[in-house]
């Protein structure tokens, strides 16, 4: 079974074939608090690593989600627009944010595994 990999910016990626599904982690949603608005990228948009892909606004603050990969936005989770609180209740399942068609073969070993990410979180509030 495919397993998610993680970034230091608290995003998760699930890669199937040449498509990566991207969202934010449980830790990220806890830090953000109650999410009230999500701005998603336009399908068809071409993103490079580090480009601003989405914005999450919580009651407390705004957080930018930068693309962790190069590729083209294939699909976004429109449910989040109506129910942004899905990002709080199910950030790593129903609260996925967008799917990207990868521009190149992705070396998932460049990201953290679940174990590595849990260790990375130790000591972070």
């Amino acid at each position, binding site marked *: 079974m495919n397993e998610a990999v993680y970034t230091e910016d608290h995003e998760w990626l699930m890669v199937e074939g040449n498509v990566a599904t991207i969202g934010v982690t449980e830790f990220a949603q806890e830090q953000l608090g109650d999410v009230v608005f999500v701005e998603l990228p336009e399908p068809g948009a071409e993103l490079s690593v580090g480009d601003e892909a989405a914005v999450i*606004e919580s*009651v407390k603050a705004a957080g930018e989600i930068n693309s962790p990969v190069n590729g083209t936005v294939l699909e976004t989770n429109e449910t989040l627009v109506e129910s942004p609180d899905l990002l709080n209740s199910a950030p790593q399942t129903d609260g996925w944010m967008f799917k990207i068609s990868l521009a190149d073969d992705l070396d998932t070993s460049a990201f953290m595994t679940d174990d590595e990410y849990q260790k990375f979180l130790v000591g972070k509030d």
Partner: protein
Amino acid sequence: MALEPDIRKTIFHDYHVAAGGKMVPFAGYLMPVQYSEGIMQEHLHCRDRVGLFDVSHMGQIIVKGEGAAEALEKLVPVDLQSLAINQQTYATLTSEQGGVLDDLIITRWTEDTFFLVVNAGCKEQDIAHIRKHLPNFDITYLADRGLLALQGLQAKDVMAELVPEANTLVFMNGGHASIDGIDVYITRSGYTGEDGFEISVDPADALALADILLAFDSVNWIGLGARDSLRLEAGLCLYGHDMDQQTSPVEASIIWSISKSRRTGGVNQGGFLGADVILAQIASGTARKRVGFLVDGRAPVREGAEIVDEAGTVVGAITSGGFGPTLQAPIAMGYVSTELSAVGTQLHALVRGKPRPITVAKMPLVPQRYFRG
């Protein structure tokens, strides 16, 4: 998290941590921004039931001496000489330039004793300012004294069990009382727009008092995050954001806080710092003023966002903005050119470069529910 080495804690610090408080540095103190329920639930809990706020970081100051009312009137544009004992008033400490050094609540304890509650971030400067202008008065800073705010629709039901006579107080009045043998000073006031009380307590009794209040099912701790969204919905200014030394009380749309008797033509007109500037502004208006905004859509518009007119010209800036949990919509306040300040005026705020439609709205955005008898 690296903290400033001299960061202070209030007497309730360990209670916040035990309640799941997420502690952040705020005005030199480690304060709970939220507890485990989160800002949204805390906000709604306070509106519908009872919120308990630790506001012990704020400055509690006693000014005492013969003629204290008249002397303090040099620093605040309010009528203190007519303030009844145990009555309180909102005021601004004005600067010589007509700006606002801080905003505060002043309660008359006796003929010649006034109790001031000032903002945490300003208290050292405020005390120095008051001492400088009132050198012959006793100025006592109650550094360790506890201050709790009990706010919300059911706050009076809690008080009915503890100090029934406190429920006869009308908004902006106070009195000495005893809660289970603990001496406190209770006022009917707050910063949420709800009915409620603020309770000043000796540090030795503060934790016991918190235990008594928290024993009620309806009472939950509420953090700074919900405190901010509650006061924003209630249209109340946050010093340092919606008002500062660069804004006058007139620009800040709090002319109501300037007593009639201190205005031009009043029986005790002028005589406070910056009076020339402020009274001239009351007479002839200002180029800009503070207004409230409703925001289209769900994206919050936050402090610092520029406000533009139809032509894209910058006409103001947002000074407080966020999501209003009671309204379930983003709300804001800010300064705009006076000719664009009428309720209903449609403008745009720039959020990440994109114009978001905003509409000037009458404040408070959520009706205040103070108890006025």
